């Protein structure tokens, strides 16, 4: 195969190399990770997950144990300082990670699943199913979550974190369901949905595989939102002192810090780490969200690159509406380049 030599050769090395289709498909699947932001998010999340599992083992101290180092600033001995009882805050954070991660993820996943199930089904099915599911989500929308959590928690003497997660999950799906339902309404008349129906897909499959992927954007932001909400709820419950979770979580730490007016006492180290740890968890989720772009819209799969370099060293951005031009900036028009291009072409061909 003779290639017409042009500037492209310099720009795109290995242009002729054939990529195996299967390899291509495989790469596609993992391209997600290639996104630096998503990778960072995943890494942070992985660290949290790890902490959730091994936190209690690697904690240097018993988080409950009192010591003589009362209310000390961070030091080599106590990385995050100590509480008014001399407890090691670093250990409390490590031990508390599990509860936060577990509650956040369980509640987030549960709420997301419910909102998708109910919202999308209602939107897609329409009619009586829609009416009743909408009524259900409206009712849940109306029941204020925090009081309900307080109430249910008080019905059970010893509300474990699983219960808290369940309650948060069960009360926070309605919003997402409403938004998803509305979007589904506009998706369900799309031709490709009709086409899938005409192919004979079952309803649940249409919902799950034709409509759902196109809702990924909303679901993803909703998921990030609910996980953050769930973590916040758990922490808030502990912070305002109503959850009866006995184990440590970051809200408990903040509860103690606030109860002891840590900020007013100047004990910032008591207050700051837990807050930042929570915020970092949320950020990790948002970062992962960047990775879903390419799932949301396969058209964005540009090899993870939004910028490319041209031969003459310019950087151009891949963007809709303005296709990048890789050729070096041409001489100002009118130009008489065509003749010599043709010449070289011919030389090549005869060679």
């Amino acid at each position, binding site marked *: 195969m003779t290639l017409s030599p042009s500037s492209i050769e310099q720009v795109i090395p290995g242009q002729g190399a054939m990529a195996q289709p299967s390899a291509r498909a495989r790469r596609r699947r993992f391209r997600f990770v290639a996104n630096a932001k998503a990778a960072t998010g995943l890494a942070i999340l992985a660290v949290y997950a790890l902490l959730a599992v091994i936190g209690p083992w690697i904690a240097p101290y018993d988080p409950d144990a009192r010591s003589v180092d009362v209310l000390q600033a961070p030091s080599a001995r106590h990385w995050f300082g100590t509480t008014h009882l001399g407890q090691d805050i670093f250990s409390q954070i490590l031990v508390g990670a599990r509860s936060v991660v577990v509650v956040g993820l369980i509640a987030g996943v549960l709420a997301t699943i419910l909102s998708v199930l109910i919202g999308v089904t209602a939107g897609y099915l329409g009619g009586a199913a829609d009416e009743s599911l909408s009524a259900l989500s409206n009712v849940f929308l109306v029941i204020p979550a925090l009081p309900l959590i307080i109430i249910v928690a008080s019905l059970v003497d010893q509300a474990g974190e699983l219960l808290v997660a369940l309650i948060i999950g069960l009360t926070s799906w309605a919003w997402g369901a409403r938004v998803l339902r509305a979007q589904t309404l506009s998706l369900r008349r799309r031709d490709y949905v009709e086409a899938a129906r005409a192919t004979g897909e079952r309803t649940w499959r249409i919902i799950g595989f034709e409509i759902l992927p196109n809702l990924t954007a909303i679901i993803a932001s909703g998921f990030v939102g609910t996980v953050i909400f769930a973590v916040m709820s758990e922490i808030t419950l502990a912070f305002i002192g109503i959850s009866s979770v006995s184990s440590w979580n970051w809200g408990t730490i903040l509860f103690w810090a606030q109860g002891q007016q840590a900020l007013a006492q100047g004990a910032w180290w008591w207050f700051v780490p837990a807050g930042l740890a929570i915020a970092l968890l949320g950020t990790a989720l948002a970062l992962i969200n960047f990775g879903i772009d390419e799932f949301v819209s396969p*058209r964005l799969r540009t090899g993870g690159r939004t910028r490319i370099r041209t031969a003459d060293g310019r950087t151009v951005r891949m963007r809709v509406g*303005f296709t990048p*031009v890789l050729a070096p900036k*041409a001489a100002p028009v009118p130009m008489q380049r065509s003749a010599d291009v043709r010449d070289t072409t011919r030389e090549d061909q005869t060679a």
Partner: protein
Amino acid sequence: MNDKVLEIRGLCVDYGVGAEAVRAVRDVDLTLHRGEVLGLAGESGSGKSTLAYGLTRLLPPPGVVSGGQVVYHPADGPPVDVLTLSPARLREFRWAETSIVFQGAMNSLNPVHKVSTQLLDVIRAHEPKSTAAGRLARAKELLRLVGISADRLDSYPHQLSGGMRQRVMIAMALALEPQVVIMDEPTTALDVVMQRQILGQLAELRDRLGFAVLFITHDLSLLVEFSDRIAIMYGGRIVEEAPAARLYAEPLHPYTEGLLHSFPALRGPRRELTGIPGSPPDLRAMPSGCAFHPRCPKAFDPCDERLPVLGPPGVDDPTRAVACWLHPAVAPLSR
């Protein structure tokens, strides 16, 4: 009438960069003259749409223009290379000078805006001084031009049939009376009456306004009837280019010949349709030499090794060009 309005030189368009790049348009040279209708036909997937979008730089990622020039000659003023225009200049240039009707009209119309909004805002963007009433009147006139009653202005795209949407797009393309109109299969969803009516209108407008049309379609009979010149694409390249009647009467490239033997005729006796054996080439693994050679009934020695250049087949016939070793180019195409 014979001066150039759009000159495409050595245009190459890729999808993706680096190892994954697929070259969909290869080294295309094409010249559009003022007031002419240039038909572009060819294999499905041969890069016609890519060419059309590439030259206006509307190709969505991962498309990149990897080489060549697109020189636009305005009615007054010096020529400009469209590919080097700044975004702001490009925006001014678009639609006012070159408008484009996309393939797949449903997706070309914003589903949440009324037809009127979408028609009016293009006028407003380029003619900010126009009055609202004037714009509305113009929009109605445009719709009438394509045979849609004015009361459809308030419709949303999904309330229109496929053909109506296409007509709306055509109306929109004509709104600013540009110098070049690129139409990518604008009439696929239209019935022939409507098709004729619109093309008739288009021809009339062209006579009046002198714009050039790059007309992409598969309907060869329509092309022959409607365009002045026809270019045939195969595997990302132009393989033949000739005045419409000449091409129909005397195709030089075996692929063109094959095409002409593939379409049914409405009138006359039923004839045998031979078609073209074999299957379209894979852009990722183009055959060496002439891309058509594996399917070519007349393939011979050099075909599988050397790439034929597009050029006039004989000194006596400068109006047409072909890229085939059966009719080797006597000279590089020069216009």
